[in-house]
């Protein structure tokens, strides 16, 4: 295939926009895995739940996905807190998180996927809101609204999460939990409660990312597996516990995938994130922004 300038610029633009969405998908994992040390393999399954909730909301209840996403992520927040309580009670408290806890999340990932298959089937589902159809053309660069709106929503969400963690007391205790649990206790905060709230935020962000995903592209339950590699690759590449790092890594991965899909072939793009992950683990496990 000959490399034309138009094709290259379009691939980079769509990669950046895709990367913004990836940041939304991976930010929850950065909190759970990077900050709380909870290896939530089921994070992509929660993203799928978000997608199918939005599908259900649009096609059955007739609610616009941009309105329903607020309610769904609020529900995700409550669910995430309860889920963390259960996880803490059964695994963290016993000191079983290394093998049993990891297998538990893997089991949850699997159960959610099979349950979604049983409920919604294996067909691709999508949302056909009329305002998502048109495209925005700036010269020879073409961007569909279907991609652009989720990109903006993702950036807004990331900005909110970042300022919550940096500005509020609870947010700062969440950041502190990843560094020194005793110090969190000394300033009068309950580390378990901080972790609970943080996991709630992580789950809410996964649900929101799921709503964005089904706006961007058709979704079937096993699509979540592609996001295991993507989200973990982004999380590690971004330096584990930094949201700006997550955004940077997401944009990098988005561009790398778009270039691969355009110039090598779409069937190779799943390997990009995983290859990048293996490479990062082997060469620079601290990530690009790591200390």
């Amino acid at each position, binding site marked *: 295939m000959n490399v034309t300038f138009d094709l290259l610029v379009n691939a980079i633009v769509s990669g950046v926009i895709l990367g913004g969405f990836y940041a939304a998908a991976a930010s929850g994992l950065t909190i759970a895995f990077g900050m709380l040390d909870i290896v939530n393999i089921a994070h992509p399954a929660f993203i799928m739940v978000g997608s199918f909730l939005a599908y259900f909301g649009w096609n059955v209840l007739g609610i616009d996905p941009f309105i329903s996403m607020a309610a769904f992520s609020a529900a995700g927040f409550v669910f995430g807190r309860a889920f963390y309580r259960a996880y803490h009670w059964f695994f963290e408290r016993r000191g079983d998180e290394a*093998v049993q806890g990891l297998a538990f999340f893997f089991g949850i990932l699997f159960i959610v996927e099979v349950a979604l298959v049983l409920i919604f089937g294996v067909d691709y589902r999508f949302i056909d809101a009329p305002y998502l159809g048109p495209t925005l053309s700036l010269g020879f660069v073409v961007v569909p609204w279907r991609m652009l709106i989720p990109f903006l929503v993702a950036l807004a969400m990331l900005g909110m999460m970042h300022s919550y963690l940096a500005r509020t007391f609870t947010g700062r205790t969440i950041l502190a939990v990843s560094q020194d649990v005793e110090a969190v206790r000394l300033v009068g905060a309950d580390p378990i409660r901080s972790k609970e709230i943080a996991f709630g935020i992580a789950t809410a962000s996964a649900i929101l990312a799921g709503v964005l995903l089904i706006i961007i592209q058709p979704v079937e339950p096993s699509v979540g597996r592609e996001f295991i590699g993507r989200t973990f690759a982004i999380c590690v590449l971004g330096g584990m516990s930094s949201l700006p790092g997550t955004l940077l890594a997401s944009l990098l991965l988005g561009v790398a995938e778009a270039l691969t899909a355009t110039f090598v072939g779409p069937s190779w793009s799943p390997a990009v994130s995983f290859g990048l992950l293996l490479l990062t683990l082997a060469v620079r496990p601290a990530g690009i922004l790591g200390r």
Partner: protein
Amino acid sequence: MSGPIALGPVSGSRPMAIRRPYWTACSIVLGVLALMAAAILLGSRISEYYYLATYTILQFVVLGTAWNILGGYAGYVNFGAAGFFAIGCYTTIAFTKLLQLPLIADVLLAAVMSGLVGLATGYVTLRLRGVFFSIATLAFAIVLQTIIVNWRFVGGSRGVYVIRPDVAYFFSSYAQFLLVLMTGLAGVAVLAALAVEKSWIGAGLAAIRDDETAAETSGVPSLRLKLIATTLSGSLMGVAGAPFPYYITYVDPSSVFNLTISVNAIAMPLVGGTGAWWGPIVGAVLLGSAQQILTVTISSAANVLFVGLLLVLFLIVAPRGVVGLVRDWRRGRP
């Protein structure tokens, strides 16, 4: 005194006195021979379905035992069992296309190939925290699937048909031959796990599982032991997959890189209990036969859901599996 004090294991010395489990090994060999004899004597008197069902359970005995060598003994969770299984499977396909080797030779080649991949994966990730190994195994399975999907020679995404050769020697059907072969392989896997568990390797791996830093400080060569475990574990997973093309006769990437295989490989040792060599056997027989029954009576989607639910249930209620329950019961007995 001459020379510095040697840190690390001195050759010839063993960290602890270990009783050799000769009787256990003998009874495993006897059990394998009895199962083989039963399969041969029954011949075509029973439906071929029973051979294939038993084959599936034994295949999971191999997979679960292989997973347990790393996951149970050393505490390193491998999510990519399907990837290693697929290496075995595609080794058979590639070498059948190239050389038309007998299946036994394919099994040995599969053991070498997946063992090497296991060693490489371990070498890349085991210097890091244990969880990175888990994520890397997940990543590795997807990278491998992408390569296979794009590799025309072994069928690519469309898959490939494998023709079973004629039945040889005294076997009445090819299914019977496959069952006898898998019985032997299961025996080899279980004996390997027993040898690891009862030797200094197992003692070292247990020390790594409990506290890796403490183990290293007391002279356990942790990286070397972990590499031995990943190589052996990967190799046995490949062995489990090597006869699979002849079992299923049509192989495509989505049936080999199936998440169900990875989940089963984890669920069976954890349900059976990771602490002892017989845990994965119990788990495989329990979960394997339950899945066969559910597939026949309800649906294959239901059996997949069942594995996941049982795994989560056991992790919450009995985190040490059946092995743990039995040990608690023995301890509590007056």
